[in-house]
């Protein structure tokens, strides 16, 4: 990830940062939330928070990783609120929450569904590495964890993903796994 130069507190640089990184942040949050509209709202909220603290940004941390940290915090909070709403809704309708905790997942084999079953930090690490090509250091900054923990977290996430997706992948269905109705463009 080539890091352009930004100056803390500069309005023009923050505008440029917004244009340069909006698309990648939206991709990350769509993977975490599985909902394009919520992801767009969270990205805007993240930029609003970042804008308030832009003058305090330390250039030692890559600006995009710093932004990702803010955006992931917003998305994790949104996931918690959504989960509480879903549980409350299920309890209200049926009297007991679903055990799989992922309404609408059904039996489909889907990468985004499998990502959703991971702990949010592991899902974020997978997206940052395999979608954006982040280094361990950048993932550590984005997740607020030590760099040496990133490798073990990525390995654990990949093991769980292979368990979820492996049989279909081994049958050569990898190319058709994305047939799920869940799509960020929906």
């Amino acid at each position: 990830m080539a890091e352009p130069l930004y100056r803390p507190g500069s309005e023009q640089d923050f505008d440029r940062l917004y244009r340069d990184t909006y698309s990648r942040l939206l991709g990350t949050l769509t993977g975490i939330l599985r909902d394009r509209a919520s992801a767009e709202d969270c990205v805007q909220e993240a930029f609003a928070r970042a804008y308030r603290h832009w003058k305090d940004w330390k250039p030692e941390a890559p600006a995009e990783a710093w932004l990702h940290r803010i955006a992931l915090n917003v998305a994790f909070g949104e996931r918690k609120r959504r989960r509480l709403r879903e549980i409350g809704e299920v309890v209200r309708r049926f009297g007991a929450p679903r055990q799989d905790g992922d309404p609408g997942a059904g039996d489909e084999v889907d990468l985004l569904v499998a990502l959703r079953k991971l702990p949010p930090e592991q899902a974020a690490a997978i997206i940052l590495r395999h979608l954006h090509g982040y280094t361990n250091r950048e993932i550590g900054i984005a997740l607020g964890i030590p760099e040496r923990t990133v490798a073990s977290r990525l390995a654990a996430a990949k093991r769980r993903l292979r368990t979820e997706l492996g049989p279909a992948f081994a049958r050569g269905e990898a190319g058709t796994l994305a047939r799920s109705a869940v799509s960020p463009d929906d």
Partner: protein
Amino acid sequence: MSDGNEFEDWLGQELERRLHPNLSSVPAPHYRNEGTRRGPLSKFISGLVAALATKTATGLTVAVLAAGATGAVIVGVQSGAIQQFSESMRTVVEDCKGQPPTNGQHGIGACVASSARHHGSEARSNNPGQGSKPDKSGKPVETGKPDQTGKPANPGHSGDHPGGKPTPRPADDGGGD
């Protein structure tokens, strides 16, 4: 290992295909007009803070004013009548200590009571409108000495006793500063 690499390659391709937003243009940012777009929770919190701040400021102002007024009253009273009276009584006690016992009595109680009574009578005659009751006879007590029974004259008149309501001493009495 090749299986692992294959899985990772597939993972990257799938993530790119599923999560890339394919935006033709970046939407307009919201962070510039964030100040005018506040949610109900932030409005409630800021309203609560403003209300608390106003109430706190009002309470502090009232407390400061009340404390200042009370202090002024206390200082005024202490530096006025009470201070004068206590100074004069201190002088009376010192004088009584220097006098020999009369009629075989010990102590300075009778002497002090008589002097206080004398002081009260003087104060009433000099300040008739101050609220102190006039002496029933209308005459001041002439001597500070006990009567024949050894008891202070007019013992039931508590209005002149130091233990009763104090009477401001006139300034020309020499008791004040």
